[in-house]
């Protein structure tokens, strides 16, 4: 189903606009440690990171990496309120200073309860290495212009 109706077409195979963060902030990991009540020092204490043999850059919280993919879906769909679900596997670490890119492709459209839902394959990459991958479902009724 491809419906233009003066709006962006959405169909299986549609490539979503990439979302990029040029450099993950180490400072913001400290804020997130408080938001998540996450005491793991690998996110904020460089001495601990070094003692654990994990290099000299802090490790980004996994939920932050998930949020970057959510941001990509929101920019594409017009807001966070359109996200219906997301399932991901954490496959690698993102470190302070890394450039991350979230990207995705629509794998199919389906009708459900008077809505048009787009199932998407999504991933987050650092230097073309996939650090998070999975699927997401977004309500795109407003993009297709069709209330079923």
């Amino acid at each position, binding site marked *: 189903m491809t419906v233009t109706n003066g709006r962006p077409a959405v169909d299986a195979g549609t490539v979503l606009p990439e979302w990029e963060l040029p450099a993950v902030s180490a400072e913001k990991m400290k804020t997130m440690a408080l938001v998540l009540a996450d005491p793991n020092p690998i996110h904020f204490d460089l001495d601990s990171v070094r003692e654990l043999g994990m290099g000299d850059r802090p490790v980004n919280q996994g939920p932050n990496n998930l949020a970057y993919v959510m941001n990509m879906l929101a920019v594409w769909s017009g807001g966070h*309120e359109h996200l219906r679900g997301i399932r991901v*596997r*954490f496959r690698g670490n993102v470190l302070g200073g890394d450039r991350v890119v979230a990207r995705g492709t629509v794998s199919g459209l389906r009708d459900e309860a008077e809505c048009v839902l787009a199932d998407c394959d999504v991933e987050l990459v650092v230097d073309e290495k996939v650090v998070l991958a999975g699927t997401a479902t977004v309500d795109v009724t407003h993009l297709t212009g069709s209330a079923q």
Partner: protein
Amino acid sequence: MAMTESELAAIVGTPIPGGSYTVEPYVDWLLNDVVESPRDGRVAHPLFAYVAVAVGKTVSWDGLFEICGATADDGPMFGEHETVLERPLLVGETFTVGGEFISAERKRGQRTGVFDIVGFRLSLTDVDGATVASTYNSIVFPRRGA
């Protein structure tokens, strides 16, 4: 000593102590700043489904690991995460958090050795008693002694 397989199976159905979580406007501001997302002010970032269950459950990560017969020193790793949203989460809303362990499976890998994958689901319920969101997480526990 590592859990036996029968002890592992008995984890399934164990409730996870829950509490409540409010999406405070200042925390919404901070979280959106952290993850580089424009702030809506009305609709909360969907990551709050994860944050609400992580903070709103009243058992610590160490306590959760203990139920699974492990500690942080065993090197548990996040496996999968799923968020299902019935509707958008709103800034200022308060949710009740509750859930249980739903799966526990022992696996053996040639390179990784024995490890267990334990899954749990936590839900957010609004003040009217409606389920707003649910999250699933799986944690991988290396079982070097098994």
